[in-house]
């Protein structure tokens, strides 16, 4: 394999195109590692990229560096961006469309969290706005930007291609437990749940479904990473909209 071939990315027209935020996190990395053979993934990360083959990084055998490796077959398209800057949202969506010419699935997995008491410390209070910006508002901005740039002008295709949004929420949004220090995280996910339902109503006019996925803390024995990835696939392949798929170790339940 020549030097230039390190950059070559295999692309199948049958793959669905997924725009994924939070790709550098545990969930995002697992999504890229395990689903890159099923999706063409635009992996948006703020810090370190996911440890998977991308347009910039690949695996080699040190004793046979020119030998093509199967592990490099399905590379993700990694984009570094700070999505708290609205201009970066525009740039990311433009890059995704320039690279793949369509977006079939938007997975909002970027997350910000800070845990602590409301009284006795400013730490949680100081983080509240950012948690809501990243966990609640950013998913809406991402979806609206994709809609404005692509889905609004392809509304007939959107139905036939079953295009949709999956917002990564949490079962922490269903309970109030002061001892967890999760007032900011939990309520930002409550907002995300309801924003997902409002989005689902409005996005019907462009033929795009919107749902949320609410796992308990993961990966654990009760909620392994595989179950969360399967949850995304269930929502992506289904027909539901405005629903929350709960993964609490008791089997997937739609709310």
């Amino acid at each position, binding site marked *: 394999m020549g*030097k230039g071939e*390190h*950059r070559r990315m295999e692309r199948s027209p049958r793959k669905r195109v997924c725009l994924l935020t939070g790709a550098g996190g545990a969930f995002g990395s697992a999504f890229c590692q395990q689903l890159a053979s099923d999706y063409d993934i635009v992996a948006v990360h703020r810090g370190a990229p996911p*440890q998977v083959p991308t347009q*910039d*990084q*690949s*695996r*080699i*055998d*040190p*004793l046979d*560096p*020119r030998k093509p*490796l199967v*592990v490099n077959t399905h590379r993700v398209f990694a984009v570094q961006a700070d999505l708290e800057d609205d201009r970066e949202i525009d740039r990311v969506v433009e890059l995704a469309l320039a690279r793949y010419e369509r977006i079939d699935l938007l997975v909002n997995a970027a997350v910000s969290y800070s845990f602590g008491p409301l009284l006795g410390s400013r730490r949680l209070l100081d983080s509240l706005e950012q948690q809501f910006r990243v966990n609640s508002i950013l998913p809406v901005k991402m979806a609206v930007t994709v809609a404005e740039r692509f889905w609004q002008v392809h509304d007939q295709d959107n139905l036939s291609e079953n295009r949709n949004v999956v917002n990564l929420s949490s079962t922490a949004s269903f309970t109030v437990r002061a001892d967890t220090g999760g007032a900011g995280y939990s309520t930002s996910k409550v907002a995300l749940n309801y924003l997902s339902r409002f989005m689902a109503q409005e996005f019907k006019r462009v033929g795009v479904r919107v749902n949320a996925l609410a796992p308990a803390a993961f990966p654990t024995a009760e909620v392994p990473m595989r179950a969360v990835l399967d949850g995304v696939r269930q929502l992506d392949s289904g027909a539901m909209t405005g629903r929350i798929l709960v993964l609490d170790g008791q089997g997937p339940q739609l709310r």
Partner: protein
Amino acid sequence: MTSPAVSRARSGPPPPLTEVLANRRWWRDDRPFPHFRAQGVFTPAFYDALVEHRRRVERRGRSETADPSRLSRNMLNSDAYAWDFPPDLGGPLSIFVSRAWHDMIAAMTDVPATGDVNCALHHHHAGSRDGFVHGDLGVAWFSRQPRADGINPMDLARCSYTDGSGPEHASAVDRVRAVTAIFYLDNEGWQPGDGGETALYLRQSDPVRRPAVAVAPVDNSILVFENTPHSYHAFLRNPTRARNSVILWLHRANSDVMTRWGVEVAKSWGQVPLDGGIDP
């Protein structure tokens, strides 16, 4: 149980790479410039042998002035201690100056290496300063005493690596540093925040504390990159604990560099002193 190959390597020639390389899936990353990284490079038994060999050198003590028999402060612009591999080195550490290792690194980086090698142990004591953002591309000098396998290890008793001076000055040849490889070892328990990373930069003007990538000195891991006019890197300070590594440079012909990057590149060589001044 220690394998026969590893046992033989304690004092003799290094074992075949196929027997001791544990990781056959290294990363190639093009940002901020092409480099290779891997963790779990060697089998645990051979890695332990490398650590033991390093500690045998360490037990000789450290010197504050240049001393070829010990880790010593022999780099002008660095506060690290270095021990240059002697040309007749045997034992586990000699794997880094073996023909097989040389050819593997050269093939990986696609560099026409000449067989001239400079290899050393580096020890950055806790509290070492940040390095400066630099590239390693520059002239190096070698006396000519190649081994039977064609590898020509640096021999400072015959010829200065920096300027070619010494008893064999007349027959010394000038080369250019072609590849830098840093193998991290004996840094057990390293954690983020301990420092001692090798930082990589897009531009030489980038602040040393704001690299594009910081490669952690995790035990049994390696960083490899071709020396180009753009391979800027630096050592990041290690406030709480020492950092140990093996540093290896491969070399290429001067004419090869001129062909690839032009004579203008050579003008910069005088601005960065070799050996005594560069400390990745």
